């Protein structure tokens, strides 16, 4: 049962020592009740109280982790319905499915391509997280051989798909020592599946068409000793899946309803129309999926999905930023142009990538705009003439170049007058609004 802040307070030391970072024990208790802090932040709580509180302080959505060969994919531990309320924590794992009816060579080739896929976005390398292997052949040896083929091409975590316990048993033997996800348990096979999951330290997905049945199943599976559970409410179209995913997240967070306090799995490729797979995946990423199993891999689809996942799971309180500094692009010399922008990382990488790609050497001065883009920072007063001038002076740009001339983004053309006052020795030029137009601007105008 969830405890109220007052109930929790009674079990705390009540010394207001502030070691947890909060002014009073009551404040800490309230945060604990809201599941916004961990009990471990209090170094003084008594052992017996700890035991009582640990159940109450368990995350409302259990953390489930799939592991293999040093790779780990985590889902769960989420605490909010909307990212602006705090943040979403564990990015949903993206998996690609193969079937054991495919020839081993085809499986290996498909897996190798997807496994090696790595795309750079704002300085981060993004990849898929793992693979799902489905037994459709009905032959345990064929299934085990397909898994072996996958393992020759990838070391990432696996999801084993079959509702036949004999197939899953063969599959688990093929990945001994790993922590895969079994998909899955239903009303007919849950006992055998739970035994297998427990025996092999695997997580277990449970599948049911209604929340009532789903909750019944997780309780049975938990009773049988499986703690790491994943939910599939079996919705394969957008509206039903949105409704069920929302209801499950609400029950877990707002009602602390333990039987549905687990991450969700989603199969966007099962909607029937291959062109809609990426659309279904959008919805899985924004609305609460913990594991997403795709049926098709193509760079032109994987890239936008990986980027969307980064965007939605960015902490709204900490915009991704780069260090304010003078960045030397293509080893600039004293005669090369000085460009100014903000330290929002999307802004920085848009500008830096364009210049780098063009081969033109330039000094890129990144001002501290508290991680905001050019227009946003300008509107918020974080990218004004004073700040730009201060940056130019503090990084001693004048010592690096022969010609005192800076280029400001076209969106803040209005700043040029004030900048001329702040930097009287400097020539202020207004550049293009968009980063893609920078190389031609530098070549033609400067």
């Amino acid at each position, binding site marked *: 049962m969830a405890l109220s802040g007052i109930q929790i307070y009674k079990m705390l030391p009540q010394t207001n020592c502030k070691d947890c970072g909060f002014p009073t024990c009551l404040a800490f208790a309230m945060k604990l009740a809201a599941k916004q802090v961990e009990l471990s932040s209090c170094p003084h709580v008594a052992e017996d109280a700890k035991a009582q509180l640990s159940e109450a302080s368990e995350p409302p959505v259990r953390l489930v982790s799939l592991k293999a060969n040093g790779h780990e994919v985590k889902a769960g531990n989420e605490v909010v319905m909307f990212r602006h309320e705090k943040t979403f924590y564990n990015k949903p794992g993206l998996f690609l499915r193969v079937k054991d009816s495919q020839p081993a060579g085809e499986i290996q080739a498909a897996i190798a391509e997807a496994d090696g896929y790595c795309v750079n976005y704002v300085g981060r390398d993004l990849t898929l997280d793992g693979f799902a292997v489905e037994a459709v052949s009905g032959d345990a040896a064929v299934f085990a051989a397909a898994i072996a083929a996958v393992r020759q091409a990838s070391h990432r975590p696996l999801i084993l798909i079959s509702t036949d316990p004999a197939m899953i048993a063969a599959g688990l033997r093929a990945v001994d020592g790993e922590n895969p996800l079994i998909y899955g348990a239903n009303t007919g096979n849950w006992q055998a599946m739970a035994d297998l999951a427990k025996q092999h330290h695997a997580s277990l997905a449970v599948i049911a068409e209604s929340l009532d049945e789903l909750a019944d199943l997780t309780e049975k599976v938990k009773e049988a000793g499986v703690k790491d559970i994943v939910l599939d409410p079996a919705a394969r179209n*957008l509206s039903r899946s949105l409704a069920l995913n929302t209801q499950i997240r609400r029950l877990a967070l707002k009602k602390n309803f333990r039987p549905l306090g687990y991450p969700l799995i989603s199969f966007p490729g099962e*909607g029937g129309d291959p062109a809609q797979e990426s659309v279904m995946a959008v919805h899985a990423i924004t609305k609460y999926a913990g594991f997403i199993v795709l049926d098709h891999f193509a760079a032109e689809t994987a890239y936008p999905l990986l980027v969307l996942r980064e965007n939605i799971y960015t902490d709204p309180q900490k915009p991704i930023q780069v260090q304010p500094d003078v960045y030397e692009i293509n080893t600039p010399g004293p005669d090369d142009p000085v460009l100014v922008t903000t330290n929002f990382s999307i802004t920085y990488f848009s500008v830096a990538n364009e210049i780098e790609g063009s081969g033109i050497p330039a000094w890129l001065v990144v001002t501290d705009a508290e991680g905001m883009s050019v227009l*946003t920072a300008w509107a918020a007063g974080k990218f004004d003439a004073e700040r730009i001038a201060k940056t130019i002076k503090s990084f001693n740009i004048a010592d690096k170049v022969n010609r005192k001339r800076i280029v400001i983004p076209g969106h803040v053309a209005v700043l040029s007058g004030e900048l001329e006052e702040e930097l009287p020795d400097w020539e202020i030029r207004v550049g293009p609004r968009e980063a893609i137009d920078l190389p031609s601007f530098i070549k033609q105008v400067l």
Partner: protein
Amino acid sequence: MAVEIPKDSWAGSVRVVTLGATPADGGTRSHTIMIGGQNTLPFMHFEKPTPHRPVIAVEIKDRRPEDWSGLLLDIWGDAANDPAAWAKQAEVAGADMLVLALTLTAADGNPTTPSMAVEAVKAVLAASKLPLIVLGPGQADADNELLVPVAEATKGERLALGLCEDKNYRTIVAAAMANDHCVVARTPMDVNLAKQLNILIHDMGLPLDRIVMDPTTGALGYGIEYGYSVMERLRLAALQGDAMTQLPMMVTPGFEAWKTKESKFGQDVPGTWGNWEERAINWETLTAMTLVESGADVVVLRHPESVRRVHQAITDLMTVPETV
């Protein structure tokens, strides 16, 4: 076990805005489009019915937009040379309504004149009977100079005119009021700025049911998460009863997505970006769908295949599940 479904019950609801007027109401449109009216979060059919589906507006221009991606110019072909032909093509592609975005300069390099703008708008209204949004070129002086005569020449059509921004809204709002049109109010990704502009426009005397707000979005990869969260917060505020946020939302994922390098260019990009055309369509479609999930009532798109995919997805989202 019987699981009790947690249902939200909200005090507030989004206003309904009607776009376009039929001959019965003084216009020439074949039908009107109603947006807004929700009193749940998007598509929570198990709480309350969703009264009006989100609509897709296809963006066309008064003259061939040479700065658009080659993929877009290729797919629209010769239609892009003529706003009337383009309007018809957009209707065939599945547009629920049209956005005509006026260009700053004419083909000869001189500024677009009011009579040229009026002619383009009239040609589009004659070619397609869909409700229409007309956007100025995006510079205050030009917007005012072109949109006022457009508003006068189309009195009674119940167009939406935009974009009203905090530094330039009075002239556009006055023109809309005098000629029975609506307005689109744009603010840069901020809940309070959106509220403030709605208040300013309302204070001039334009009824709230003639304002659509555009809270601005970024494209996928270029700040979409800011637009997404601002829209979620605006919709939550509306449902909680904050009157000045209870307006339908329009966003421009087509404009934003086709501005990105990912959509605009097929050459000199990393190989890991994959096939250009499919990537570009994905960029627009995924941007649009993310915003539909966060409460967009109008999404403005550019590519016909994106229109097809988003339309299909909205139809799916609007299907009321039987058992939940």
